[in-house]
């Protein structure tokens, strides 16, 4: 099992390539194969996490070439943690995809699931690799799969996907250009090696330029304000499964790369004091939080609202990076985890609405939905409360650490932004909750006007809400309670071990 670090991306890549062959006769095989490969990646990354937990960071040298010459995979607590989060959320979303039964991708399920696995392969590779150029290659695998998964959607989807492609390619190219500057100065591509060489060349303007280009490039992928232009359309017009996959995973992986490059390749002191990179990210993130929240209030379509709320939530991660202190770092990493679960759950509920009610238009929601989709709506409520940040749910704790970090740094504006945006979140989520839970059931929804309580059990019959659609959403959102209750363990056991040196 000494090869287990490399196994996840390779397994997903092999499965992605073999799916079109396996599914030649029966297209149903594609979904099962994707599900199996995804389950395999969850198991292997959990196994890797256990190994790292017990015996410290692992490295894997591809082809037996030692770094800095060869490509190295680095499994430290941060990378296995993020990889595990990504794989678990992706597996739950894939379970949900089975219930949709190709409704939004008629006849295209074989290439679709192959692309899903390519997306996961790229995400895992980006997270686990210890080589900066290898990261670029996986970034492009990830992005190309993304473009395909978005473009397969509604009528407007190819346009949204094309705009994402142009912006995403510019982002990846900026990353490559910045990497070129770093490489010219340091002569190495291995992250650990670059970290050792960089202190000797910090005065060189090429390093500054390279860092700026990398941050801008990844900022586009992460959709940090004002580089978020591609995101709302892409999330809105993509098929439900694609948005539920890309929203929790896509921007988080880019945020992880920024964390990794700023704090683990470059030096905390260099990026926060010599150059105000983290300050810049923090302020842009703060504007993005307010912008995203205000725009989310103005939306009538649920998926578009969730997309704008994603811009705001990515801002929290940016804010944590911007604080560049241990509490901010804990908040950012915890929010990567929490937001992956919250957004996954919310997009799955939006998918259930589209499947059962045929739309996800907020203005058309009314009290009948609490009977038609009681469990989905419960999942939505829980995830929404977590987004707002009510205490027992997970969302509260990442905001709590971010707020503590802002106080620790004495940055009262950031603290104000966190508090204000919680209120704004409350406004745009309570708007939906009010329609669903506080209105009196209208004639169309009431079957003999039973009380909502007795209907909780009856609403849960076949045809009204399918298990395959309901369970993944409920699992994701109830795990928010679990994550919230266990947050002390997560922070103490995992995140405090990965706070970068010199923070």
């Amino acid at each position, binding site marked *: 099992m000494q090869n287990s670090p490399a196994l996840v991306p390779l397994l997903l890549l092999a499965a992605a390539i073999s799916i079109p062959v396996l599914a030649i006769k029966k297209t149903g095989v594609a979904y099962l194969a994707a599900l199996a490969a995804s389950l395999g990646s969850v198991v292997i990354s959990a196994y890797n996490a256990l190994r790292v937990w017990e015996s410290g960071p692992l490295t894997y040298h591809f082809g037996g070439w030692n770094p800095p010459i060869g490509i190295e995979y680095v499994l430290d607590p941060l990378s296995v943690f993020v990889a595990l989060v990504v794989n678990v959320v992706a597996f739950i979303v894939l379970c949900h995809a089975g219930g949709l039964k190709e409704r939004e991708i008629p006849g295209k399920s074989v290439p679709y699931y192959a692309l899903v696995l390519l997306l996961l392969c790229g995400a895992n590779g980006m997270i686990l690799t210890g080589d900066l*150029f290898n990261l*670029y*290659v996986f970034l*492009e695998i990830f992005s*190309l799969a993304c*473009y*395909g998964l978005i*473009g397969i959607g509604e*009528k*407007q989807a*190819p*346009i949204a*996907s*094309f705009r994402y*492609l*142009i912006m995403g*390619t*510019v982002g990846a*190219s900026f990353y*490559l*250009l910045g990497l*070129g500057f770093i*490489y*010219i100065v340091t002569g190495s591509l291995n992250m650990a090696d670059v970290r050792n060489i960089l202190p000797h060349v910090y005065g060189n303007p090429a390093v500054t330029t390279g860092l700026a280009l990398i941050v801008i490039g990844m900022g586009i992928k992460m959709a940090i304000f004002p580089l978020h232009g591609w995101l709302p359309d892409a999330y809105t017009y993509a098929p439900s499964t694609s948005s539920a996959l890309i929203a929790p995973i896509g921007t988080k992986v880019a945020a992880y790369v920024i964390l990794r490059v700023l704090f683990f390749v470059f030096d905390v002191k260099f990026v926060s004091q010599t150059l105000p990179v983290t300050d810049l990210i923090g302020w842009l993130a703060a504007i993005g939080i307010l912008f995203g929240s205000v725009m989310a209030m103005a939306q009538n379509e649920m998926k578009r609202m969730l997309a704008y709320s994603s811009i705001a939530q990515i801002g929290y991660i940016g804010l944590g990076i911007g604080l560049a202190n241990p509490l901010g770092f804990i908040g950012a990493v915890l929010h990567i985890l929490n937001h992956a679960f919250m957004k996954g759950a919310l997009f799955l509920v939006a998918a259930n609405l589209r499947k059962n009610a045929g739309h996800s238009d907020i203005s058309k929601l009314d009290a009948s939905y609490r009977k038609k989709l009681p469990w989905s709506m419960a999942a939505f409520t829980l995830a929404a409360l977590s987004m707002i940040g009510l205490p027992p749910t997970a969302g509260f704790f990442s905001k709590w650490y971010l707020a503590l970090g802002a106080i620790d740094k004495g940055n009262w504006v950031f603290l104000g932004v966190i508090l204000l945006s919680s209120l704004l979140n409350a406004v745009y989520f309570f708007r939906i909750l009010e329609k669903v839970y506080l209105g009196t059931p209208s004639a169309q929804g009431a079957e003999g006007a039973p009380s909502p309580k007795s209907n909780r059990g009856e609403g849960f019959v076949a045809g009204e809400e399918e298990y395959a659609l309901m369970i993944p959403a409920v699992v994701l959102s109830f795990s928010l309670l679990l994550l919230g209750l266990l947050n002390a363990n997560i922070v103490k056991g995992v995140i405090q071990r990965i706070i970068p040196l010199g923070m």
Partner: protein
Amino acid sequence: MTDFILGHYAYWAIIFLLVLGLYGMVFKKNLAKKLIGMTIFQVAIIMFYVASAVKWAATVPVLDPAIGAVDAAKYISPLQHCLMLTAIVVGVATSGVAFSLVISIYRRYKTLDESILLERMKSS
């Protein structure tokens, strides 16, 4: 100063190509022209890497018995070229995906003009 300008002539050309590519992507309304801009942008970065590998009075990185393997300064660095082979492949794949999206857009909307597309996108 003159030396600085003349000595870096390859980089000036690359900067020109980068700006040209960005201009194409931002200001051209036709999606195919945007793609041309994107390709120019990518090619400029490839040339940037290749230009950074240049060494005067050095030869291709294949062992030549007449030169020997002692003096690395007599061979150019092969790594940038290898990296760019990968980047070229990535660029081709990106163009492929982009053109398939353009075809799909044209089939659905019968135009590639961005301003018309945005109007039709809202109305539908």
